[in-house]
């Protein structure tokens, strides 16, 4: 009922792909910490990797709304594949699409949009997470090259990416004003992926350190204007929040679906139908209601972005809400499954492990709340 015909059709297509091709791989991706190369290739074929990018730049020429639907549908069956899609599209593709010069778009955006190259975004550092003004990585213009030094951490797809947008400052004491955004390609001398994180969830996605040691970048690799890195990443994160929210929503929907299925199939030992037990009904109803509310918040934020209307508050609300109700839903799903929910016979324990990241990545819930509060207080 929420969607128009165009988006309904699109959802059907992605859902079919998710159910038929992604879902069967989800458990092993998680268990083996396997990166989903095969699924990425398929997503490229289905034109899912740059949904809102115009066709002339290799995208699908759709909108942010479709993108949210795609992340939601894939996240519903596999968080790892979902986070890859979200990171690639929102964090790799988007900043180049939004802030890149025509040359940069030709050189970087098109291959990323087509899935020939993998994109990533290096913002977080060991000592600068939600507080991006604390960026320590430096980029000093020496002659006609930027010399980059520093370390990025917790970078989704960082170790496998071909094209990485990252931020660095010309002087850490300048705060936001010193920060610029750059593009670095895999294999550039002085740049290498560092340690691979061993994580609670999203184990089929790769999260890496990026190490810069006197890495020399041509001036052309500056993305946007010098000193405007803040603008680049704030715009990127505003949009990224929609995709993390959509992923949180998808996983929550997965947890709800699994719970409904379990409840319908199972009887309690007393012989009473689980679905008639009020303690179960109460949990199912809460999950379903909150999942629906999260969906509406995310779609609203996507619609605002598609219409070029302000959406900072709405995207923060969507991300904060979807992630918080998402972990709650996954937790409830395990409770409904009982002991079985703790085993990997059922997907719900994986859902909970995957979902937890959504409360932390792309600005913690606490940061989202500050963003929302500032907006409503007019600060």
């Amino acid at each position: 009922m929420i969607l128009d015909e165009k988006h309904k059709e699109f959802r059907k297509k992605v859902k079919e792909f998710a159910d038929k091709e992604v879902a069967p791989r989800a458990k092993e991706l998680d268990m083996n910490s396997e990166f989903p190369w095969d699924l990425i290739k398929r997503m490229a074929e289905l034109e899912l990797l740059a949904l809102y990018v115009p066709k002339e730049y290799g995208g699908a020429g759709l909108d942010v709304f479709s993108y949210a639907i795609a992340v939601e549908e894939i996240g519903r069956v596999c968080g790892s594949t979902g986070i890859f899609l979200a990171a690639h599209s929102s964090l790799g593709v988007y900043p180049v699409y939004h802030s890149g010069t025509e040359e940069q778009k030709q050189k970087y955006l098109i291959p990323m949009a087509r899935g020939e190259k993998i994109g990533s975004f290096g913002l977080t550092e060991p000592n600068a997470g939600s507080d991006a003004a604390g960026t320590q990585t430096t980029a000093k213009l020496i002659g006609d090259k930027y010399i980059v030094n520093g370390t990025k951490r917790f970078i989704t797809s960082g170790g496998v990416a071909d094209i990485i947008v990252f931020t660095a400052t010309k002087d850490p004491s300048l705060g936001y004003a010193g920060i610029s955004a750059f593009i670095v390609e895999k294999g550039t001398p002085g740049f290498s992926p560092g340690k691979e994180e061993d994580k609670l969830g999203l184990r089929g996605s790769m999260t890496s350190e990026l190490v810069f040691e006197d890495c020399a970048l041509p001036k052309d690799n500056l993305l946007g204007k010098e000193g405007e890195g803040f603008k680049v990443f704030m715009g990127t994160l505003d949009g990224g929040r929609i995709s993390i929210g959509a992923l949180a929503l998808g996983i929550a929907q997965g947890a709800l679906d699994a719970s409904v299925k379990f409840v319908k199939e199972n009887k309690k030992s007393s012989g009473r139908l689980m679905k008639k037990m009020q303690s179960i009904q109460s949990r199912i109803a809460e999950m379903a209601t909150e999942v629906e509310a999260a969906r509406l918040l995310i779609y609203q934020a996507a619609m605002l972005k598609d219409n070029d209307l302000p959406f900072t508050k709405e995207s923060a609300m969507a991300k904060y809400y979807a992630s918080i109700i998402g972990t709650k839903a996954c937790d409830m799903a395990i409770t409904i499954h009982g002991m079985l929910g703790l085993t990997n016979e059922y997907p719900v324990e994986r859902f909970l492990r995957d979902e937890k990241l959504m409360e932390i990545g792309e600005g913690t819930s606490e940061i989202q709340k500050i963003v929302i509060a500032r907006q409503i207080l007019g600060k």
Partner: protein
Amino acid sequence: MDIIVCIKRVAQTAEADVKIDSSGKDIVKDRLTFDMNESDTYALEEAILLKEKFGGTLTAVSLGTVQAEDTLRIALAKGADSAIRIKAEDFEGLDGYKTAQLLKAAIKDLKFDVVFTGCIATDDYYSQVGVTLAELLGVPHATLVTKIDIQDTKAQVHRELEGGLIEHLDMTLPALFTIQTGINEPRYASLIAIRRAAKKEIKVIGASEIEPTGIQANASLEELFTPPAGKRAEILSGSMDEISAKVAGIIKEKGLI
């Protein structure tokens, strides 16, 4: 009686934290709400009351972006027969003079006995457009109007002056009045009227319809800034009684009581 009312959609800044944008010439409007300028709502009501009394036509005109159509539609719902929007996006450097020129160009072919405007816009506080428009149209005007009685082509008008004085004028129509708040009690549009107004077309005219040559601004905005904080504030400390005594002392000292 044929009536024209000019209305403006303005940012509601009274209770907002106003910030200057990066151009230095405008304020950040992202999170502000917009509405019909306050005295314009009274001008509109006065126009509707006149139309209800004498019959005729009522046209609402606004110079604004496409969002101004929301404001014009409210005017239609309350009682205007038709509405015209002059596309603000087609013109640059809109000072009071140029605005009045554009309004004149938009209404010059319409018949009118009375033109209403608000007495002042709460965004730029110029209070220029009504008066300038009257001059350009070659009709008499009265500002800060708090009462109007019309008999045939004669209008008896009250104007509000400082010190609680009222000035009574006799004028001949056609004329232009800039309306002071409080002259009447603006109505709310009924739901049925809203539904009808939502379907009405708003005439939009832009640079291609209004010959832009010769319409020049007389002033250009250079900079918006917040003045440095003054040093005339004093924070009193002490118990409630002590503070009260200090306040009383200061007031006496300044000869205020």
